[in-house]
């Protein structure tokens, strides 16, 4: 049987909240698991159980052939013995240590020469040259994040745990670093669990996504599946993006990207260069439906297609249009009647370029 990380445990914070999660993550090849959900959904609690910083009162955690936690069997492996790399949300860099000191903190059992070599390697890998002797307080947010990552991976952990790795950064830095982090995770080939509440981050970084709410895992699957085919209304509401399809950028003209999705081309705002693999993300409320053959609008994208599904939800109807890929659109009941929509009606979906979000993905 292939090695897996298996979690089945329950952790209660009396009077506040219970987290009860079951999941199985294959470890070979190493994958990045995203724990995705709103604040208070139990993602961080689950991550801390994996790190050994919270003790579940019931259940077990099995990493490959090693049992980390088995409450019934009274096995509780300390965080020290799990060989993990853990990066808390605000990095928790040691203020009394320099950048080098932080990175080599966990390496004290290695001979000095090996330790220094490893620190040099990580300084280069994370582009921290020249900052070796700086104290954390002198670093920018992005630099602190890289030091925290270097420290977490220094001991060559068998599992990497990142809690909101980018949320402490300002928006421009965040979008730049999320690409770098994805490249790094791909390069490291360490099984990783990443907590985030940001859907773009989840899509960028994740191979597998677990959507969490109220301490439970509601859906577990590939990013595209979870976003485009939410298991239920709760998941749909949490992810908030109804159409996620794979595409690649075929041209970029000063920030107006042309993206090809299953043979259809779309215009989107984005700096992604020609050839980039992307997820194309469209919110259902950002799409207009017109009867086929009607007038010209300012929207850059006009996609012809046939209605394949209509799901009434209160005063709204979620319509799926097959325009080369399934596109979800939300309209009012009144609009549906005016357009006289039926299954197989021919429609044109209009989407402004600014409403087509591109998220880089690994190929």
């Amino acid at each position, binding site marked *: 049987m292939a090695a897996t990380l298996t979690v089945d445990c329950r952790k209660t914070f009396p009077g506040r909240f219970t987290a009860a999660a079951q999941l199985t993550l294959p470890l070979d090849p190493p994958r990045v698991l995203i724990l995705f959900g709103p604040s208070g959904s139990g993602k961080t609690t689950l991550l801390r159980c994996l*790190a*050994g*910083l919270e003790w579940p009162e019931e259940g077990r955690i099995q990493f490959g052939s090693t049992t980390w936690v088995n409450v019934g069997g009274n096995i509780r492996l300390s965080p020290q013995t*799990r060989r993990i790399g853990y990066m*808390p949300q605000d990095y*928790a860099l*040691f203020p*009394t240590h320099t950048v080098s000191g932080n990175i080599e*903190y966990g390496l004290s059992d290695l001979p000095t020469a090996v330790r220094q070599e490893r620190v040099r390697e990580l300084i280069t890998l994370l582009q921290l040259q020249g900052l070796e002797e700086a104290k954390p307080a002198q670093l920018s947010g992005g630099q602190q994040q890289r030091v925290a990552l270097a420290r977490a991976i220094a001991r060559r952990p068998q599992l990497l745990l990142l809690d909101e790795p980018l949320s402490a950064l300002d928006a421009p830095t965040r979008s730049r670093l999320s690409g770098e982090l994805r490249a790094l995770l791909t390069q490291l080939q360490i099984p990783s669990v990443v907590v985030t509440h940001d859907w773009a981050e989840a899509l960028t970084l994740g191979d597998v996504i677990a959507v969490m709410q109220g301490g439970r895992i509601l859906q577990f699957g590939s990013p595209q599946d979870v976003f485009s085919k939410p298991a239920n209304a709760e998941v749909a509401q949490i992810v908030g993006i109804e159409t996620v399809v794979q595409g690649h950028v075929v041209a970029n003209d000063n920030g107006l990207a042309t993206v090809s999705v299953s043979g259809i081309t779309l215009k989107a705002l984005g700096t992604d260069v020609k050839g980039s693999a992307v997820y194309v993300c469209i919110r259902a409320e950002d799409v207009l439906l017109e009867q086929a053959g009607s007038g010209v609008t300012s929207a850059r994208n006009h996609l012809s297609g046939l209605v394949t599904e209509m799901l009434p939800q209160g005063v709204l109807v979620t319509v799926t249009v097959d325009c080369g890929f399934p596109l979800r659109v939300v309209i009012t009941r009144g609009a549906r009647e005016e357009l006289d929509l039926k299954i197989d009606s021919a429609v044109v979906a209009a989407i402004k370029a600014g409403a087509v979000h591109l998220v880089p993905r690994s190929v």
Partner: protein
Amino acid sequence: MNWIAIAVTFKLALLTAAVLLVIGLPIAYWLTFSKWRWKFIVESVVALPLVLPPTVLGFYILVAIGPHSPVGRFYSDVVGHPLPFTFEGLLLASILYSLPFAVQPFAAAFAQVDHRLIEASWTLGVSKFNTFFRLIAPLSTAGLITGAVLSFAHTLGEFGVVLMVGGNIEGETRTVSIDIYDEVQALNYAGAAKTSLLLLAVSYGVLLLVYAMNRKVWVVWPQR
């Protein structure tokens, strides 16, 4: 000035501070990080010397280390002489008397260390013991010095406990504060004034050091 008494006093205060630095750290660590629900019982015991009259504390210590107690008997069997009215007995009493003056600043400093840093250290494979020396202690330097200095200064001026447990033996247990009392009893006000001034100067100097060095750890006055 009675230089012998001054020497005894400083020796006593230095040793007390040194011993408290060693035994106060684990006590403070436990008081800070233990999640035991009855912890407050131990906290209250440690703080007792703050409110108990020194004579009462001295009386109990005297009884506890006297020849009629198991501890006292054991000590005199091993060492060959009883513990009360010796320098060692006085040292033991001073340690107990100054315990909260060391433990409270230590614990206050430990409590200020961000727990996330400690957890980060654990996940990096560093044991709790090494995390203490590599992370918690360096981050608590000001509190450690404060505790050591305060227990030193507090021991310099102790009177009631010394009288109860140490007696008044020249070169052995006669400390400066007892010497001042003797001088006043002998109506030698000039001698008492000199020694008092010395004690005042040292105490003030020590507190200046503490306050100048750290503005974070609660010492005697709460921070505004």
